[in-house]
């Protein structure tokens, strides 16, 4: 069975600083995808960044980047130049295969608070 673990229930960072959120996963699959989703108080799950397991290069989206360590099954999210609008719940998620029936498996989330 596939599992996703987020060991940091809550984190806090000062505005403009950098923060890293941790995620580990367990799978025997070789073809899979990893995601970070943000859930603000509006409740809508918003995709932050995605990583395909066969790609060795770490994904980057503006201020957001990942550190993907396939052998260690680790997928951390780094947020640079943190902004007040980054305050939200962040979920790490895993999906394997490529068909339409693939479900997302989520971790329990990390609540990030950006302090002014």
């Amino acid at each position, binding site marked *: 069975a596939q599992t*996703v673990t987020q060991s940091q229930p809550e984190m806090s960072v000062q505005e403009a600083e950098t923060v890293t959120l941790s995620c580990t996963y367990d799978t025997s699959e070789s073809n899979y*995808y990893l995601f970070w*989703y943000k859930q603000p108080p*509006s*409740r*809508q*799950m*918003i*995709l932050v960044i*995605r990583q*395909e397991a066969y790609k060795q290069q770490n994904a980057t989206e503006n201020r957001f980047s990942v550190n993907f360590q396939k052998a260690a099954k680790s997928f951390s999210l780094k947020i640079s130049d943190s902004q007040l609008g980054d305050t939200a719940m962040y*979920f790490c*998620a895993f*999906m394997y295969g*490529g*068909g*339409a*029936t*693939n*479900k*997302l*498996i*989520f*971790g*329990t*989330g990390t609540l990030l608070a950006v302090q002014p």
Partner: protein
Amino acid sequence: DAGVTQSPTHLIKTRGQQVTLRCSPKSGHDTVSWYQQALGQGPQFIFQYYEEEERQRGNFPDRFSGHQFPNYSSELNVNALLLGDSALYLCASTHRLGPRLYGYTFGSGTRLTVV
């Protein structure tokens, strides 16, 4: 371009009652998944529909059922409500060619409270 639309936004029901939640997928998407998010937890997969059929199901009892209509919209039905069914129910849509290409788009959810 409208995203995923869910209704209602909030709902209060009594134990034993039945509830129906609705979802309209993003334009161009034909596949709908439903997730249950209990307070303080990550979303848990309930089931997925495309071509009006349930294609995959998570570890949820038969009290949870669904339907997809020809216009790709979907309903989630829960019978014999329990207090433990209180949660945020999220709908996510994608295209059948795969979320790898099209990604998942989530709605803002329906907050169900069972009293």
